[in-house]
């Protein structure tokens, strides 16, 4: 048993691997990964939308897989590699998917965009971007209230090199 604590005891010390760095934080037992990223590590690119695993705005990578940080207990992430939108590209640079989202105008308000991009990167890395239908299915857990879906699919197809494969008429 490596942890055993209750509030209102002092906060728990926790070491997280975030974007390749070991970060020591002090958190209450019930803290989610999302809240720790935003409020302790000040990585505010990851967004809080519904906070119940329904919208995808909080999507990050945990050990290379897309996860919903709002439904992830921070304490359960010790020893796992977390990547956020801030960790996709070196400081000042853009990941090709970020560049493609700009190129294709794949957002309006931008609130869902970090989560969209984290899923989009995984979609291409995991070879699930073979055609527009496959992309739409992979991305179905990322909602966009501005309905930029056709442009998001186009950006992903651009990066995957599958433009024109089953693009159909947008949605």
């Amino acid at each position, binding site marked *: *048993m*490596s*942890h055993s604590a*209750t509030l209102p005891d002092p906060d728990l010390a926790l070491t997280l691997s975030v974007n390749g760095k070991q970060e020591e934080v002090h958190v209450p037992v019930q803290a989610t990964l999302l809240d720790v990223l935003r409020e302790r590590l000040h990585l505010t690119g990851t967004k809080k939308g519904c906070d119940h695993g329904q919208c995808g705005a909080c*999507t990050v990578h945990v050990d290379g897989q897309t996860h*919903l940080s709002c439904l992830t207990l921070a304490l*359960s992430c010790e020893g796992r590699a977390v990547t956020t939108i801030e960790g996709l590209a070196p400081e000042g640079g853009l990941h090709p998917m970020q560049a493609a989202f700009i190129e294709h105008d794949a957002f309006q308000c931008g609130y869902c965009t970090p989560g969209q991009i984290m899923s989009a990167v995984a979609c291409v890395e995991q070879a699930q971007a073979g055609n527009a239908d496959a992309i739409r299915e992979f991305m179905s857990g990322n909602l966009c209230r501005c309905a930029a879906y056709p442009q998001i699919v186009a950006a992903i197809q651009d990066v995957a090199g599958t433009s024109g494969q089953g693009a159909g008429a947008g949605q």
Partner: protein
Amino acid sequence: MRPFTYVRAQEVGEAAGQPGRFLAGGTTLIDLMKLDVERPAQVTDITALPLVDIAEHGGGVRIGALASMAQVADHPLIAARYPALRNALLAGASQQIRNMASMGGNVMQRTRCPYFRDTSFTACNKREPGSGCGAIAGHHRKQAVLGTSDACVALHPSDASVALVAYGAILTLRGPDGEREVSLEDFNLLPGQTPHLEHDLREGELITAITLPAPPAGSGVYLKVRDRESYEFALSSCAALLDVQDGVIRAARVVLGGVGTKPWRSPEAEAALTGQPATRETFENAARRALAGATPLEQNAFKVPLTARVIVRALLAAQAGEAADGHGDGQTADQGGRA
């Protein structure tokens, strides 16, 4: 979310017998803790336990309870032998949730009934025994039409469990006093007058594995119908396994989702299929038998004729899969849109 005692278990024996709740993928538990529906005094994190293997086992497959929905759906043994399970998993959640959610947790997931999930409603017999049912006289469009009682009509939400029951899944449970096995079909309980009792799971028991026997001969289909094309719970679904020889049905399994208070196996439909010619008329008769005991309410009455059509379509697809590949792994000819 209320605070709790957090324990991270390193071994199965250490986890078994712990009070409170076990934390695996967290997609149900953390959600319900935020809603204040779940209020465990202790949470035992079991994510470090070595229960992720998926391997051949006695002609079938043994799935570690911590294998994720994504790992199971993508495993070659599952794709080749249990296509209805693969498609139920793919249709069952978004990619993120499939990456997180464990198979044991999927079996344990709680209803989406809004009166259960929202504590501002005082009446929910499942959440507060004896408090009444808000759904029966209230909003119940998505709730169950099979296996209901006057105390509860809450729908069992799992897609994967429907396919697992069709394939005869056995759960291995580890408790403080040792291990036992129970079929998933028997594991889920009907609500009756005790809808707060959902499973045959004793205090401190942990699901450690889900074992599938060798798949039956023939082909398997999972067909799911929902309000939108993806990322939505079922209004109605059917796992159909069909073995047809020379135009005659040798064996059939029919399990329904989106309509039952538990994954709903229909022995009536299976009896109406077995030994009969594999025709639409036979399938329509089986569908009628499956739904003869339905107890719909005003807003969910549509599920009865909808489910009859879902059953027929799933059986036709299973038959077509059988015809297409002779007698073998049974591709899903029809998954109701994308899987």
